[in-house]
């Protein structure tokens, strides 16, 4: 892996230079929220930690036309635009690696592959806030899955090169690159120490696969199911949620059917319904159990890591406080003040 540095004052010109690859997108603050948007480098929020929707939207958009067909022929003209996506943090890149495994390991998803090819991932270091817990999921640093990764050391940024595509992109910005010296490395080590000491939220994921498995009949699920709104927000904002649904829509004007592919959620009742009307997970508690078992047990046994990267989007997004932190704490018999724990379970 090659390493360079750039002066902080050259960050914006550096990003503008990368526009030679494609449209420049990054975290932009809009009111109280932050979203990945197409913008000028000056508009990016360099301190932003979590966007409303994660970068998975670049690889498979929330809703897109996957096929167009008429009576006798079909056409797949899905061609994602080339984009530079700036500002992903280590957790976000880990999430993209999980995405990558899911969409390429057994079957290669052509839509994912095309978008992946058209996207240049430029990571950015971060300092945790009171919600971050990537140290607990082992995703606070990242070695692969990005094309370039920038670490902000104050007056300069270190530039990791993570892929041949990243290497190639440096041709666009070669004039800003400088060689690193020993001091840069020692400053980086000191920065890491400071960063690692900055985590405030304590979550213990150690032993979770067993704890979740053994808690299969725990009353916690029932209680959670009572309070769950089944709104699906947790799955939409989760950077590792991959589920989608397909539906054919008729385009009257063009006399074409459009096969729409859109993000779907395992907490929706219809998700586990099969032909004939049988539903394998009719109860909300069963659907939540599926989600947490998938994230903390199933993925672990398949890939050796949980499908949670500690970004805390579920923590800041669920209206009733059902999230990885509160659920893990409840299953570990630890104290949690989450709203869902306060709802009385009625007899109904």
């Amino acid at each position, binding site marked *: 892996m090659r390493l360079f540095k750039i002066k902080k004052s050259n960050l914006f010109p550096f990003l503008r230079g990368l526009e030679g690859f494609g449209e420049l997108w990054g975290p932009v603050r809009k*009111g*109280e*929220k932050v*979203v990945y948007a197409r913008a000028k480098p000056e508009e990016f929020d360099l301190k932003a930690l979590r966007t*409303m*929707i994660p970068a998975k939207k670049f690889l498979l958009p*929330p*809703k897109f036309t996957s096929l167009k067909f008429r009576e006798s022929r079909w056409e797949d003209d899905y061609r994602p635009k080339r984009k530079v996506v700036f500002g992903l943090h280590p957790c976000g890149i880990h999430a993209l690696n999980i995405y990558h495994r899911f969409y390429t390991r057994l079957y290669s998803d052509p839509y994912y592959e095309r978008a992946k090819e058209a996207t240049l991932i430029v990571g950015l270091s971060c300092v945790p806030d009171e919600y971050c817990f990537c140290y607990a999921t082992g995703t606070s640093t990242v070695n692969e899955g990005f094309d370039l990764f920038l670490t902000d050391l104050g007056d300069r940024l270190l530039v990791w090169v993570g892929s041949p595509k990243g290497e190639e992109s440096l041709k666009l910005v070669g004039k800003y690159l400088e060689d690193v010296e020993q001091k840069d490395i020692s400053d980086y080590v000191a920065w890491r120490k400071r960063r690692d000491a900055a985590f405030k939220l304590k979550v213990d994921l150690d032993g979770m696969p067993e704890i979740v498995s053994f808690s299969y009949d725990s009353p916690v699920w029932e209680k959670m199911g*009572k*309070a*769950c*709104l*089944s*709104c*699906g*927000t947790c799955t*939409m*904002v989760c950077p590792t949620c991959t589920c989608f649904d397909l*539906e*054919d*829509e*008729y*385009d*009257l*004007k063009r006399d074409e*059917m459009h096969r729409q592919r*859109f*993000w*779907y*959620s395992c907490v*929706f*009742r*219809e998700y586990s319904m099969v032909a004939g009307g049988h539903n394998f997970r009719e109860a*909300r508690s069963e659907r939540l159990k599926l989600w947490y078992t998938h994230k903390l047990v199933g993925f672990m046994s398949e890939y050796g890591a949980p499908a949670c990267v500690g970004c805390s989007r579920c923590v800041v*997004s669920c*209206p*009733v406080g059902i999230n990885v932190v509160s659920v893990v704490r409840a299953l570990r018999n630890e104290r949690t003040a989450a*709203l869902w724990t*306060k*709802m*009385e379970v*009625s007899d*109904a």
Partner: protein
Amino acid sequence: MSKPRIGIYGLTGCAGDQLNILNCEDELLKLFDIFEIKSFVMASSAADEESPLDVAFVEGSVSTEKDLEHLKEIRKKSRLLVAIGHCAVFGGVQSMFTGKKWEETYRAVYGKKDAVSLTRPLPPKPLSAYVKVDAVLPGCPIEKEPFLKLAGLLAKGVVPRHPDFPVCAECKWKENECLLLKGEICLGPLTNSGCGAICPSLNIPCIGCWGPIEKENWEAEAFLLKENGFSVEEVVKRFAIFGGEERAEKLKKFLEGKEG
């Protein structure tokens, strides 16, 4: 292949759904092209009520005996019957009162029960309370795009499936901030998708005009709103707009039960 014959009808309602079909200005010619329109009184008085229909679109709730007779006639001559708009699908705002309260309200407005002589009034109900409904398109009023998609599928011989997941999904696809988290009375989690989250995208809480999803968790929604400091009255009022009397009463009982 001959064109599918359709009819567009209205029972008790504001006629906003039929109007929105007429508002599909750019696509109207295309609609005339793929369908043979036998009856659409709002657009043309030259209606043919004798021919059988492939598809009847019906808006409005059944609120009078005349409505009911009309609906039964339409059902008899139509292969498929599609309920359009909240009134036809769920009963509409008017179904806020259906039981004893309806009688009281009726008397308060019209005086004696038989004061209206043209037809006998009935407590407002959706079409499905009386006849078989083959497909639905909710909304108050229906939106142009979903209508055109539905009409298109029907023209292709497909009976459209009604989605069953909350509008919150569409709201998140648009990267809106959650209005429940911002302390608003938003009924998104209880409300079916399809509109594309129009209101919350404009920072206006969802009032549920696409009707409820199956097995909605209104208890959790009520619990959350109460935790957020809203009174029973405020919550019940919002539910009642598109929720129907039965649903609002259930909610009220639940909230009051938890009062003490």
